[in-house]
């Protein structure tokens, strides 16, 4: 572009023209118009005529500020124009600098130093004000250092506007250049005694900001602040002084005693709500040991809560939240208003109220509060409903289920929450279900019961939000099948036709659970038959089985429930077992051709196992040939091995277990997987949870439907009719949930959401009537179940951030000015040394090592040459597989990362660490996945 011509400057658009034209431009053409305008501006801004230049800069600043256009290229023009003698041009230039300059990166900023200095010492008040406001926007270390002397002079300016602006600017200068404190601080302090309200307000505001970061340094100024607190009648100033005392009072108990009196006085006499609220906040935050003051403050909060103004209500609830940390009684006194706020029309207020209600939760009232909240959730809008559920889950799960005494009740309640119509907290519920299963042994029988209800209900399968919960339920059913009263119905439920609606990863868990159930049944059958000759006596861990039995008996004794394992064994005949095996075979048969790797792998495994054990079951009818017996022997041995590997407890593992493992030699950990992508550029990396070759959904649905049809010799292919069939056939299992609840249970039954939603208002009233905390503990008939946990929680890293250091620098300087040198040393010695990590020996180290070894050996296994049987044997050979997975589950938690381990022999072992993945895919599944994965890798490399 050439330079601007005369025509350009004559017919230049002003900023008003630009705005008008922008408003008139048809929608969609705006960006084109702006681009054109920018071209114009680029031409005009080079003009030597200051008017043209100023007009161009005005337009550019407008476009930058409101349309987000970049104007860093024009920074120099701003600097140039700032030296113009016309105040209007100066104004344009400084505003563009204030809005667009980045103090950290704009390099022409230094060129502005001279002009700013000139304007700061200008006799024109407007120039000085302008320079001050610009400086406060664009201040950096260099500017602050160079302009401190000018600022120092302005701090005693006779003009009030200039002086208060200078004081406000000082804050930025202190932040950028702490040494300025040594120069200016005395003058700033002198301004504290100024009678002008504007100046006083500015200087108190400045101290309020300074005390925010490092209050201790300003303690010596407390008498001055106290004087202002007593004498000043201006609300703005008082609010800031109160903020300062909020920071200072906790440092010096005597100060608290002095100020509490005047603060209460202000609270009683002043009408301004903002000031009263500030007093309340100060007392509740920092003067909470003065009972009478707190009482007064809480009474003021009560006034706020009873007001119609939603802002006051909201702030009142926030004030209560401050008290709740120290004195829950104050909240309980106001619980009527808090509970009322739970049904407010404002979401903010409802959330605050909910938070407060959750603060009140304790061991004694958790059941009642949860019951009321869930009935509240049922009639709330979906968003708030999920907030409520989230809060309940968070509060109850806090600190390893601290507030939960009756786990049986809680497990039932979790199942109930999952059924709330708008529930989207499936993942959290699923996590807690599995977590409780692993941590709380005593809750398992009830957990199995809840899982049964969930798994068995075909209606739930249609709701995608339920799938996470269902996968947890399926896992629980499979894992603790020995506690189930009827494994056969669980098996039916796990294989019901509507499971085709599940996502492949969840379906895989269903199949794997079916596998565990099958193993359990076959094993029980073998044991029942009591053919000692079939089970080799060489097995070392036969005591494990007896352990299981003991557990079962314990459970029976404590819960008074019908004997589970024995009832199973009574029904176990050869025919029933054979029917079960056939059912599995028929249902899983078609899935062996599934496109989903997960589903395919698992069903193939189960089918392979069936192939192995079926002859044994059949054979025991007519055991004549010695050869047959030999095969049976082998098969039963395998069954025993698998069952043993399944029945060991899967416990939680410390979050830090992985960190304690030394990295094995020859292992190269990579930061990212970039080169991996290169290698498999054309091949989709088999993401294990959703590996699919074709669009699977429809093919699969019709597949399974077909098979089901053959089985039941029905013509209809619709899933609804299938469901009806299923119901008819297995009507026995669709009992109403109420019947199954044991009557002898001494816990209050979990709230039935549908039945009691109507009487919800009464519940609210009841909550308000009944004391929440003061009530005596109910007589606990039995001790709280043991919750397995580790004492080394998350290791918190001590983070030192930059502002902290900066604040220290300022306070050091302040101390120097106020107290002399000795204070600085004390302030620096106050900094705590970083916490050292607690490193404790943990048995899990060996486990994680084991993962490594297993993976290493399996690296050599190719996919094609392993029969399913052999693979299972191979798998069982690694005795501690379940422990490995437990370890992986825990190490995966929170990391969610993929780590790549490069081995010596050029094959990659990739662990997909993710919470979702690892809590669902458990035990041998992981090993199988590693196998699959390795076969892929061996093939690739």
């Amino acid at each position, binding site marked *: 572009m050439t330079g601007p011509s005369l025509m350009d400057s004559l017919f230049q658009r002003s900023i008003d023209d630009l705005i008008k034209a922008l408003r008139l431009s048809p929608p969609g053409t705006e960006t084109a118009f702006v681009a054109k305008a920018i071209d114009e501006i680029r031409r005009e801004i080079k003009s030597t005529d200051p008017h043209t230049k100023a007009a161009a800069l005005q337009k550019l600043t407008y476009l930058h500020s409101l349309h987000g*256009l970049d104007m860093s290229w024009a920074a120099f023009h701003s600097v140039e124009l700032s030296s113009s003698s016309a105040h209007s041009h100066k104004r*344009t230039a400084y505003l563009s600098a204030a809005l667009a300059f980045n103090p950290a990166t704009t390099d022409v900023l230094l060129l502005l130093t001279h002009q700013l200095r000139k304007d700061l010492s200008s006799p024109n008040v407007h120039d000085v004000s302008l320079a001050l406001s610009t400086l406060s926007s664009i201040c950096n270390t260099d500017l602050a250092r160079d302009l401190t002397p000018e600022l120092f002079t302005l701090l005693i300016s006779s003009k009030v506007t200039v002086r208060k602006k200078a004081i406000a600017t000082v804050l930025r200068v202190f932040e950028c250049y702490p040494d300025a404190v040594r120069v200016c601080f005395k003058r700033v302090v002198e301004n504290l005694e100024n009678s002008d309200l504007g100046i006083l307000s500015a200087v108190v505001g400045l101290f309020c900001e300074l005390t925010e970061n490092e209050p201790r340094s300003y303690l010596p100024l407390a008498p001055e602040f106290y004087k202002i607190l007593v004498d000043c009648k201006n609300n703005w100033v008082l609010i800031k002084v109160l903020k300062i005392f909020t920071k200072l009072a906790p440092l010096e108990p005597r100060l608290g005693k002095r100020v509490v009196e005047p603060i209460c006085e202000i609270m009683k006499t002043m009408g301004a709500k903002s000031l009263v609220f500030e007093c309340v906040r100060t007392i509740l935050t920092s003067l909470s040991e003065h009972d009478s003051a707190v009482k007064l403050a809480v009474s003021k909060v009560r006034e706020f809560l009873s007001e119609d103004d939603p802002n006051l209500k909201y702030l009142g609830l926030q004030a209560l939240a401050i008290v709740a940390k120290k004195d829950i009684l104050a909240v309980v006194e106001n619980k009527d208003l808090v509970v009322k706020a739970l049904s407010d029309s404002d979401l903010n207020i409802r959330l605050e109220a909910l938070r407060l209600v959750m603060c009140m939760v304790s061991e004694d009232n958790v059941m009642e509060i949860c019951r009321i909240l869930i009935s509240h959730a049922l009639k709330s809008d979906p968003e708030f409903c999920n907030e409520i559920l989230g809060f309940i889950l968070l509060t109850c799960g806090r600190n390893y289920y601290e507030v939960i005494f009756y786990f049986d009740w809680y497990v039932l309640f979790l199942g109930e929450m999952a059924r709330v119509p708008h529930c989207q907290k499936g993942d959290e519920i699923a996590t807690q279900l599995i977590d409780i299963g692993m941590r709380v042994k005593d809750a398992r029988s009830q957990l199995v019961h809840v899982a049964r209800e969930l798994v068995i209900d075909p209606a739930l399968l249609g709701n995608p939000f339920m799938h996470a919960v269902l996968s947890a339920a399926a896992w629980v059913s499979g894992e603790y099948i020995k506690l189930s009263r009827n494994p056969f119905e669980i098996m039916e439920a796990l294989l019901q036709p509507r499971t085709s609606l599940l996502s492949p990863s969840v379906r895989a868990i269903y199949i794997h659970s079916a596998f565990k159930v099958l193993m359990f049944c076959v094993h029980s059958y073998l044991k029942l038959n009591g053919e000692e000759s079939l089970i080799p006596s060489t097995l070392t861990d036969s005591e494990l089985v007896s352990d299981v039995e003991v557990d079962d008996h314990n459970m029976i004794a404590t819960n008074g429930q019908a004997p589970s394992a024995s009832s199973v064994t009574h029904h176990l005949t050869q025919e029933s077992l054979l029917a079960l095996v056939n059912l599995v075979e028929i249902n899983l048969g078609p899935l062996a051709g599934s496109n989903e790797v997960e589903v395919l792998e698992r069903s193939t495994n189960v089918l392979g196992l069936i192939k192995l054990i079926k002859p044994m079951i059949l054979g025991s009818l007519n055991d004549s040939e010695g050869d047959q017996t030999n095969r049976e022997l082998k098969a039963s041995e395998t069954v025993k091995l698998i069952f043993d590997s399944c029945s060991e407890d899967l416990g939680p593992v410390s979050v830090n277990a992985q960190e304690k493992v030394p990295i094995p030699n020859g292992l190269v950990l990579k930061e990212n997987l970039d080169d991996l992508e290169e290698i498999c550029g054309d091949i989709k990396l088999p993401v294990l949870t959703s590996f699919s070759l074709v669009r699977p959904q429809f093919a699969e649905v019709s597949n399974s439907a077909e098979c089901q049809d053959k089985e039941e010799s029905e013509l209809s292919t619709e899933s609804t009719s299938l469901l009806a069939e299923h119901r008819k056939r297995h009507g026995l299992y669709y009992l109403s949930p109420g019947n199954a609840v044991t009557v002898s249970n001494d816990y209050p039954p979990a709230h039935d959401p549908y039945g009691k939603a109507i009487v919800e208002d009464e519940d609210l009233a009841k909550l308000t009537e009944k004391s929440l905390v003061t009530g005596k503990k109910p007589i606990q008939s039995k001790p709280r179940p043991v919750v397995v946990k580790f004492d080394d929680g998350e290791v918190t890293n001590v983070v030192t951030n930059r502002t902290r250091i900066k604040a220290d620098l300022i306070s050091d300087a302040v101390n120097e000015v106020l107290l002399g040198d000795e204070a600085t040393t004390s302030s620096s010695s106050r900094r705590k040394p970083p916490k050292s990590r607690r490193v404790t020996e943990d048995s899990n180290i060996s486990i994680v090592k084991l993962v490594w070894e297993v993976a290493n050996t399996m690296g050599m296994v190719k996919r094609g040459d392993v029969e399913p049987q052999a693979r299972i044997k191979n798998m069982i050979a690694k005795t501690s597989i379940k422990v490995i997975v437990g370890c992986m589950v825990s190490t995966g938690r929170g990391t969610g990362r993929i780590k790549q381990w490069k081995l010596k022999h050029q094959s990659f072992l990739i662990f997909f660490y993710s919470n979702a993945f690892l809590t669902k895919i458990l035990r041998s599944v992981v090993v199988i996945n590693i196998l699959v994965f390795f076969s892929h890798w061996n093939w690739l490399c």
Partner: protein
Amino acid sequence: MIRGVIIMNDQGKPRLIKFYEFQPPEKQQELVRSIYRVLCSRAENVSNFVKVDSLFGPDVRLVYKTFATLYFVFIFDKSENELAMIDLMQVFVETLNKCFREVCELDIVFNFYKVHTILDEIILGGQVLETSSEEVASAVDAISRSLPLPLSLCAYVCALVSSCEWVLRCNRHILVQLSLRVGKEWQFHDSIYSWLAEMIATELW
């Protein structure tokens, strides 16, 4: 301290953006959009506070208020009092009202620089400077007096229309066309309408 002041209309178009700590322009636009999304979903007669932890980090609060077609938004941290911020917003609006005589959205649209000047008199570097709207208005007046009188909108239009006056006399059709065009272009300006109506009336007479 105050982190930022935003004025936007009920369509989410920003009319004033001022952050007291540097924010790149794209970030500013993004913030305005996110804030608008939150504000437009809120019902009337609810509290004026919004949690913005996700946008600005913990302890930062946002208070907003609707005036006619405009949202006024203040973003501030814990060293400011929430209710005092609502009062300050009131001061700001009162000052605008004083400076523009019955302020409307268009005044703010076309007076980008003046609105910034007003705001700078109330807040400096995130610190509240002045809380009396009279003081602010007189300070802004003093600044405007020191500036050369800008070609105001009204004067501009009058000049435009009067220059066409001989055309009016020559051809009534052109007059009607012009008045329509001008009317369309300046539809927001009532005085032009009345002026044109008067002209047309006399001419037709």
